[in-house]
C-alpha cells in the first residue's frame, strides 16, 4: 500500500459522527430503518422472482446466459445472497467472507475512502456493512465481465454497502455493476462505499448503471488508487429518476504513467436532483486523466462537477462537461475545476450548457428526418460518449443499456 493515501486509521472514525456531507442535500437517516448486515447466503439467481429479475436486468444484470459472465454477485438490501465465480485467478465473494479468508484484507479497509468523510460513510462503517470483494490475482484477466447487483428491495430501508476491488499486478478486471430498487415509489436510501486498488500494470474497467426510483436517496462514496502503469476506466450511467443523488468519486494516480478516465452519462427527469462529478489527483510523473460527462435535463436539476489536480511534472488532464437542456424546466450547472501546483502540468477543460441548436435539427430535417427523429438522433449522438478500452461485448451491452433508457426520453 502506498503511504500517499493519507487517511485516518479506521478505528478513529468508526462512530456515526453525523457529519454533514460537503455536497448534496442532507438526507435525514433517522427517518429510515438501519440494519446490521445479515450473513451471506447462497441462492440460485434463477429462483429470484420475475419482478426482481426484471428490475435487476434494467440495471444491466444478466440472468439467461451466465456463461457470458466470469462471476456474479448479488446483494439484496443488506444481505449478500449470491456470489459465484467461473474463472481461475478471479475472486468474487461477500466482503465478510473475504475478511474471514484473508487476514491482510483489513489493511485495505477505509484506506482509499476515509470512514469519517461524512455521516454516510460513518453509517456504512457502523453497521458492519457487507458488499462485494472482487480481486484478480497477479496476471489474471477476466474473460467475461464480472457482474454485481446491489438491490434495494425493502421500503424505508438504508442499504449499506462496502466493496473492495483489487487488481493485482498485471491483471485485468472488467466489472459491470447494476444498482437498483424494487419498482414502486417506496422511499429508501443506498449508501455505497467502494475502494479500488489497481496495482502496477493492472487494468480495471468499471461500468455502473444506476436505475432508481423518484423516492430513492443515493450516496455512493468511491475512491481509486492507481499504481505505476495502471489503468482505471469508469463508465457511469443514470437515466432513470432519483430523489437525490450525490457522488464525487475520486482517483489518485500514485504511480508513474497511471491513467484514469471517467465517463458519466446522466439524465435528470422532473423531480430528480443529481450532483455528480469525478475528481482526479495526478501525483506521479506521466500520469493522465480524462473526465467526460454528458448531462441532460428533461426537468430535473443537475450539478456536473469535475476536478483535476496536477501535483507532478509531465502530467496531463482534460475535463469535458457538456449539458443539454430539453424542455422548459430543469437546470444544469457545470463546475469544472483545475488545479496545478507546479510547472510542467498540462490541464485543460471545456464546458458547455445549452439547448439543441436549431441549425443542427434543420440540417437533419433537410435529409428527410422529422423534427422528432432529428432531435432523437442528436440526443443519441450527444450521449454517444466514446467509451474506449471496453471489451466489445461490454461495449455493446453498455450501448444497449443506454439505448433502452433513451426510449423514455422521447
Amino acid at each position, binding site marked *: 500500500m502506498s503511504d500517499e493515501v493519507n487517511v485516518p486509521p479506521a478505528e478513529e472514525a468508526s462512530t456515526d459522527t453525523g457529519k454533514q456531507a460537503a455536497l448534496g442535500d442532507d438526507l435525514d437517516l433517522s427517518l429510515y430503518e438501519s440494519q446490521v448486515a445479515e450473513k451471506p447466503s447462497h441462492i440460485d439467481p434463477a429462483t429470484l422472482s420475475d419482478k426482481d429479475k426484471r428490475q435487476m436486468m434494467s440495471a444491466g444484470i444478466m440472468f439467461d446466459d451466465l456463461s457470458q459472465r466470469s462471476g456474479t454477485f448479488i446483494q439484496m438490501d443488506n444481505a449478500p445472497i449470491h456470489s459465484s465465480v467461473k474463472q481461475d485467478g478471479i475472486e468474487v465473494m461477500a466482503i465478510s467472507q473475504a475478511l474471514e479468508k484473508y487476514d491482510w484484507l483489513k489493511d485495505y479497509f477505509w484506506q482509499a475512502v476515509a470512514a469519517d468523510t461524512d455521516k454516510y460513510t460513518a453509517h456504512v462503517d457502523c453497521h458492519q456493512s457487507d458488499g462485494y470483494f472482487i480481486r484478480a490475482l497477479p496476471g489474471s484477466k477476466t474473460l467475461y465481465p464480472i457482474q454485481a447487483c446491489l438491490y434495494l428491495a425493502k421500503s424505508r430501508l438504508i442499504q449499506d454497502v462496502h466493496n473492495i476491488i483489487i487488481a493485482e499486478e498485471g491483471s485485468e478486471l472488467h466489472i459491470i455493476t447494476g444498482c437498483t430498487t424494487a419498482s414502486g415509489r417506496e422511499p429508501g436510501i443506498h449508501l455505497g462505499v467502494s475502494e479500488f486498488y489497481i496495482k502496477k500494470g493492472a487494468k480495471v474497467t468499471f461500468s455502473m448503471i444506476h436505475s432508481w426510483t423518484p423516492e430513492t436517496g443515493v450516496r455512493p462514496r468511491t475512491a481509486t488508487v492507481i499504481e505505476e502503469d495502471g489503468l482505471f476506466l469508469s463508465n457511469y450511467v443514470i437515466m432513470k429518476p432519483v430523489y437525490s443523488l450525490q457522488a464525487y468519486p475520486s482517483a489518485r494516480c500514485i504511480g508513474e504513467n497511471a491513467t484514469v478516465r471517467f465517463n458519466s452519462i446522466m439524465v435528470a427527469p422532473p423531480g430528480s436532483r443529481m450532483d455528480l462529478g469525478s475528481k482526479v489527483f495526478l501525483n506521479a510523473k506521466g500520469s493522465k486523466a480524462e473526465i467526460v460527462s454528458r448531462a441532460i435535463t428533461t426537468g430535473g436539476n443537475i450539478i456536473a462537477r469535475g476536478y483535476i489536480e496536477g501535483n507532478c511534472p509531465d502530467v496531463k488532464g482534460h475535463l469535458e462537461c457538456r449539458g443539454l437542456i430539453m424542455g422548459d424546466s430543469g437546470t444544469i450547472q457545470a463546475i469544472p475545476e483545475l488545479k496545478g501546483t507546479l510547472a510542467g502540468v498540462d490541464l485543460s477543460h471545456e464546458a458547455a450548457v445549452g439547448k439543441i441548436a436549431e441549425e443542427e435539427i434543420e440540417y*437533419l430535417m433537410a*435529409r428527410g428526418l422529422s423534427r422528432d427523429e432529428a432531435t432523437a438522433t442528436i440526443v443519441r449522438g450527444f450521449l454517444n460518449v466514446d467509451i474506449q478500452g471496453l471489451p466489445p461485448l461490454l461495449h455493446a451491452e453498455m450501448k444497449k443499456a443506454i439505448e433502452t433508457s433513451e426510449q423514455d426520453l422521447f
Partner: protein
Amino acid sequence: MDKKNLLEIKDLSVSVDGRHILHDINLFVQPGETQVIFGPNGSGKTTLLMTIMGFPRYQVTKGRILFKGKDITDLPLDKRANLGIGLLFQRPPVVRGVKTRDIVAACLKETEGSKATEQLAEKANLTEFLDRDINYGFSGGEIKRSELLQLLAQAPELALLDEPESGVDLENIALIGQLINDLLGKIHPIYMRTHSGLIISHTGHILDYVNARTGYVMCNGRIICEGDPHDILTTIKEKGYQECVSCPMK
C-alpha cells in the same frame, strides 16, 4: 401549369429576419435539366436555395413554389426533402456525436447491416469518415464530398447545390464534379435523365466538370440575365458583374 416543369418558381419575394432579400423571382427547371446561378456575394443566391428547401427563417412574402406540380410554398422542410428535394450545404453544421454513417444510413432509409453506406462512401472516398462526427474537423473538400455522399444516399430529383466547388483544392474538384454528375444522372442521355440540378457558383469553375443548360445571373435579389452559362461566364470573367447590372438586354 406546364407539366414538364419539375420546379416552378413564380413571382417569388422573400425576406429574412424582416429584410427583403429576393424580389419577383421567376425560374423553371425541367426534369433532367441542370441550371447554374451566378452572382456576386450577397446577391441572394443562397437565400433562393434555402427558400426552395424550406428553411423557416426564409419567409415567402409573395409568390409560389411548385414542385412536381404541387404547391410546396407552405410545406415543412422535411416534407420537401421526402418529396425529392435535396440540398448541398455550403457551410453545414458540426453535429457532435452523430456519425457520418448515421446520416447516410438515415438518407438511405436502410436497415443496419446494409452495404450501401460503405459502397457510397467508397465512391466519395470517405470510408474513413463514416465513423467520425459529421463535419467535425473536415477540410473544405471533405465537407463537399460528405454533402454529396449524403445527397447520393438521398437521391433527390432536384439537387440544390450551394457553391459545390468553394474551398475545394484541385485534387478534389474532379471527384466533386464526378459525384455531381452521378447525382444528376449525367451518364444517361438528356432525354432519359430524371434528376435535375440547380447549382450556385461564384466562380464558375464547376462548369469545367459539370455541364449545365441554362445560366442565370442574380444581383441584388433579382434575376437579371438568363442564357448560355458559358457565354454568361465569359462575360462575367471579362467585365465583372457590374456589366450585368448595366446590361441593356436585361
